[in-house]
């Protein structure tokens, strides 16, 4: 079990929270909620240790396109980078609905 945290600059206010995904083998749960200020904060709790660089690469890619001021909490059970990106995009979609 490893805890990883990242911060990214943000520009847009987010109004709604979102909860997508499940904590199950190869999947993850994403909780997204509005955060005051001009940054986004991500905290990841993962069952698979030693992949901090991979998480950073995936989140860098996600935040290259997304600039919402949010707190994102991820509970990961060994998801692939593809599933992580899909869940993050799903969370954004739900928060904009």
């Amino acid at each position, binding site marked *: 079990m490893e805890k990883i945290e990242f911060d990214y600059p943000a520009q847009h206010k987010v109004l709604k929270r979102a909860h997508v995904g499940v904590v199950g083998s190869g999947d993850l749960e994403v909780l997204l909620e509005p955060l005051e200020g001009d940054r986004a904060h991500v905290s990841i709790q993962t069952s698979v240790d030693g992949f901090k660089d991979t998480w950073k690469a995936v989140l860098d890619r996600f935040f290259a396109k997304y600039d919402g001021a949010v707190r994102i909490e991820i509970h990961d059970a060994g998801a692939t980078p*593809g599933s992580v*990106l899909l869940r993050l995009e799903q969370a954004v979609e739900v928060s904009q609905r």
Partner: protein
Amino acid sequence: MFTYKGRAVQTHDLLKINPKYLLDEATARGDTVPGWAEEYVRHVSFAVVRRGFTSETCLPIGIRGYDRNQRWAASCSPHAILYLIAPSQLLGLAAAPSRVAEVPALQSLEILKALWLDFDRPWGPGGSVGFELATGSNMAHVESDLDIVIRTAKPITLEEAKFRCAQATDLPATVDIRVETPAWGFSLKEYAREDRKEILLRTPNGPVLGSDPWRNEPDMLNAAKSFERARL
């Protein structure tokens, strides 16, 4: 399609493999064999069928070591397979009573077997519990979840999904139920969720979001393919 003795091989099937063939094939393909795996496969020569690109001669398989970080994403040909066990066949195998007493995931399987006597779809354990039952080695840990695989082409209603999820809640271990249709796999828990709109469908080409897992749209498989290519 990859068949073994006339039977379609599916994701989550467990394979007893010939370690020499497996290692020779990996070397011939130029695949990297992790340090721990070479010795390991000679002792525990079992693999699980992974989701992914499959041809008549090449099947994606996963080798799971004793440690959580020890996973080898390998491939094999039909020649390397000695026999095949589907998750539902594992219900007929029992773990040692001492193991059931100390591993919550094994206890949970015993409870679920009693609760699901009336369940008429093929189902069985996957993950570490499946490996333990197939190999007879201690693969499950005290913290292990119980992974369950249900194989069905016949739609599961929302009511049925909720009922089966409720039965699998509050057992000694967390139970993670994966439904496998001929097209893809998905989480029964996510499918049964009241507020859900789209769920994650695991296709051989990668994950994709879809609202109805019972509607098999070839477009979705292509979407998954382009998503994986574009994003990774």
